[in-house]
């Protein structure tokens, strides 16, 4: 039966197998190709991801547990897999034309990205504590290396080192929490833990401590306060395509595992409307999460105002966005989860887009300082306009999809009732604050004149195309998003 189960599971594991095969192919190809041609590994990686995407889409997502109930196959995981694959496709495309990566061999670069993809696939579907931990590390370790990929740049090294240390500490804390949870319940499977918590009398203080410890691990992945300290330095030091990638894909995966963990362990996937925080009802969990959300928003937005480096500013903005998305966790009902997932999808396009423009400008003018963006709106008008759209989408202004995302988050809060009106007001204040620094980029690009010495540089058509591809969903989903909303709603089904 053991063999049966593992082998029987394999047919549902096709996307992961394809990714694994691609990793092997990329690594081998890198050995064969000369350094000059090592960029070609990107094509293999790209093809692999495309095939994996098709496999994800065609694989039936009827909820079932695989490999002795360690990972789940369900629409929820499928949603996040699609999201991760889209981010990966764009990142590979962007990396091809990024100047700061030019002098390196690409085999390991794409190999590591694909390893992260595999890790994230497992992370979003893990339903066993061990699998959660293993896949989390599988995402983290390649990202440490990628953050430090620019070996000769001090900042990149610093980023990698800080990342390793923070990552090590927080995953250690999380594992400690897991061990306590195992000690309390005697199980590693999330569903079984839920059953034990339902039936037996677990000391609520111990349980609280346990959950707080586990939150450290998830909080680190999504970069929420107070586990955010790594992110500005890492985002600034890492190669920009990796920064963009880290800010969307692993963050989405982190949210996915957070939702799944809380939902399955404490709410139970059987509760039809998931409105009650069943086991933890003795503790003010929504309030604690709401406080974390509010602090994350305030910290991210307030500190972002003061930044001079675009990447650093976007790092803080990305912290703030984790805070917005957490507003959806606070209510933890269908509406909240739906809002989070929809927001993550939109956020993928707008944040990746913002980083892409940063790369384009760095390619053309070699700068990442906001003050050097002066007058670029007139030198490279199309890129300037696209950047403005991304910035306004991040602020949450109609008619961009960023607004729709925020709209759903707020509506989830308002629907949940009066006890969270204050959090909605905090969200509002933060949206207004955030406009100040997003608009600063637009202001510098369009309202100020370029220094006379600045030449107009031709942007590579490849990058312009990618920017356009990222912008289209932002505009289209801002006007008509019913189909995507339905897809997201249908993905709200857990094993």
């Amino acid at each position, binding site marked *: 039966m053991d063999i049966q189960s593992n082998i029987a599971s394999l047919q549902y594991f096709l996307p992961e197998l394809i990714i694994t095969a691609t990793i092997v192919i990329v690594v081998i190809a890198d050995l064969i190709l000369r350094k000059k041609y090592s960029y070609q590994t990107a094509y293999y990686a790209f093809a692999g991801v495309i095939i994996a995407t098709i496999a994800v889409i065609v694989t039936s997502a009827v909820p079932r547990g695989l490999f002795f109930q360690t990972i789940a196959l369900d629409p929820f995981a499928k949603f996040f897999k699609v999201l991760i694959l889209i981010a990966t496709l764009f990142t590979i495309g962007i990396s091809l034309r990024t100047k700061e990566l030019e002098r390196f061999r690409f085999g390991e670069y794409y190999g590591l990205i694909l390893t992260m993809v595999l890790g994230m696939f497992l992370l979003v579907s893990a339903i066993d504590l061990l699998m959660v931990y293993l896949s989390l590390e599988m995402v983290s370790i390649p990202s440490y290396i990628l953050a430090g990929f620019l070996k000769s740049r001090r900042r990149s090294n610093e980023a990698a080192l800080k990342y390793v240390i923070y990552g090590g500490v927080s995953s250690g804390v999380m594992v400690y929490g897991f061990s306590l949870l195992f000690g309390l319940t005697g199980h590693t499977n999330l569903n079984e833990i839920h059953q034990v918590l339902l039936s037996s009398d677990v000391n609520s203080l111990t349980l609280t401590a346990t959950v707080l410890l586990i939150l450290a691990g998830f909080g680190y992945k999504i970069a929420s306060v107070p586990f955010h300290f790594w992110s500005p330095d890492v985002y600034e030091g890492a190669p920009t395509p990796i920064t963009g990638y880290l800010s969307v894909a692993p963050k989405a995966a982190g949210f996915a595992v957070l939702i799944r963990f809380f939902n399955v362990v404490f709410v139970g996937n059987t509760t039809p409307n998931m409105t009650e925080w069943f086991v933890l009802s003795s503790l003010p969990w929504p309030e604690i999460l709401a406080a974390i959300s509010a602090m994350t928003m305030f910290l991210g937005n307030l500190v972002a105002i003061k930044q001079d480096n675009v990447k650093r500013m976007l790092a803080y903005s990305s912290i703030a966005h984790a805070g917005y998305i957490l507003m959806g966790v606070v209510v933890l009902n269908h509406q909240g989860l739906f809002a989070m997932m929809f927001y993550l999808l939109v956020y993928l396009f707008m944040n990746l887009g913002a980083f892409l423009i940063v790369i384009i400008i760095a390619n053309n003018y070699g700068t990442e300082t906001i003050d050097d963006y002066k007058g670029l709106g007139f030198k490279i008008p199309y890129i300037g306009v696209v950047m403005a759209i991304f910035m306004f989408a991040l602020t949450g202004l109609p008619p961009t999809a960023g607004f729709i995302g925020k709209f759903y988050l707020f*509506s989830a809060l308002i629907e949940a009732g009066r006890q969270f009106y204050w959090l*909605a007001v905090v969200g509002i204040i933060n949206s*207004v604050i955030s406009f100040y620094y997003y608009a600063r980029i637009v202001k510098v690009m369009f309202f100020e004149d370029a220094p006379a010495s600045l030449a107009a540089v031709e942007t590579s058509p490849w990058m312009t195309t990618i920017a356009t591809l990222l912008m289209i969903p932002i505009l289209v989903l801002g006007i008509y998003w019913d189909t995507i909303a339905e897809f997201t709603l249908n993905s709200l089904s857990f094993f």
Partner: protein
Amino acid sequence: MQGHLLTWVTFIPVIGMLGILFVPKDRKDVVKVVAAVATGLQLWIAVMILFAFDKNSAGMQFVEQYDWIKTFNIQYFMGIDGLSIPLVLLTALLSFIGVFASWNINKASKGYFALFLLLDTGMMGVFVSLDFFLFYIFWEVMLLPMYFLIGMWGGPQREYAAIKFFLYTFAGSILMLLAMLALYFTQDPHTFNMLTLMSGTYGRTFQIVVFLALFVAFAIKVPVFPFHTWLPLAHVEAPTAISVILAGVLLKMGTYGLLRISFPILPEGALWFALPMAILGVINIIYGAMCAMAQKDIKRLVAYSSINHMGIVLLGMAAMTKAGMSGAIFQMFNHGTITAMLFLSVGVIYDRAHHREIDGFGGLATRMPVYTGIVGVAFFAGLGLPGLSGFISEAMVFIGAFPVYTALTILATLGIILNAGYFLWAFQRIFFGELNPKYDNIQPINGRELFTLIPLAVIVIFLGVYPMPVLDLFTATVDKLLEVLNFGASMALN
């Protein structure tokens, strides 16, 4: 086309905008012609709507209703009644005039006119939407073009003015978003349909809380003291045509929102807040007039006079009598035309002298007689001279407010005296007295400028003599609104 007049009137500018994006950058003349054609068509459709409009009906007309986002029950729902139609006309007219007032813009003119047309669509959309979500989208769509138009084509302090304008209105509008969601979830099935929301009943506390949230959102736009500080700055820094749009149309959105949404949906909240609104209105009147009197810059003077005039609208609304309410709506329309004339006139003189110091001129009447005459009409309309349209609406507001808030109305009339003071004083310093020798050779007003000013002057004079054509438009609507409010009052008494 007949069945979709409101869609056309709203989106024609966007079609023009898309057209402009395809015009080569160096063909500035083509860009301007496209903008003129787009706004001209819009004006033509608006006039067609006016002729087809049935003024005896208090219901919604030209209704278009389709599902838009089914999963959230959001509709594409448009329609107009007597409250919206004057503003639809005003928007179309001022946008058309605005294009000609911008004819001299040559810096990145493609961007300017594209944004101008987008702004036009946003404004028009606000006045024809009957789905709260749609209303909100248009409300916000208008912000971004405005931000750029002030920030890129404005005066020396334009960056600060643009961001201040934006942050103020943005803060208000997200507050509106929350209020809108709170209303949405009270209905079953949830809906943003304003007409359905109007027929709902809500608890008193809920009404007050939501009313206050909406009031702040709209008050920032009006602007009501103490939310007015963005206005003088934005008006002064914006280019002429944008000041016209800003004062002529955007400010009305605040009062329109109160009348379209807050009053009929939340009548108890409105009644509860009526006295504070009247007081704020009077503060606007007196404070606006006092500030205007202290200004050295003509454009700032006009900007503060807007605060004063919008205070009159607020007072009329707060009175909740037939005369007051009609006066308020009429004053919205009149202020649109009068303030547009004022800003256009300032633009004329600024283009020649490149400054706006009131004391920097003198004796211009001898060199620019026609211009002096037109500015005279605008100034006298602004101070409420009988025979011009401003007088009628102000008088109606005071007649309507006097029985309800006697003391406040008396105070407010003092503000009108102040109005006369600063307008006349400024007029005297600019046009009479010794001719400033610097302006001995100043160019007289040209044909294009006359083309922008004369239609407005005609409207101001005509409505001052015979206001019925506009008043008739909204009589039925005002009656219906008062009925709703009286019903709310009886509910409050029980």
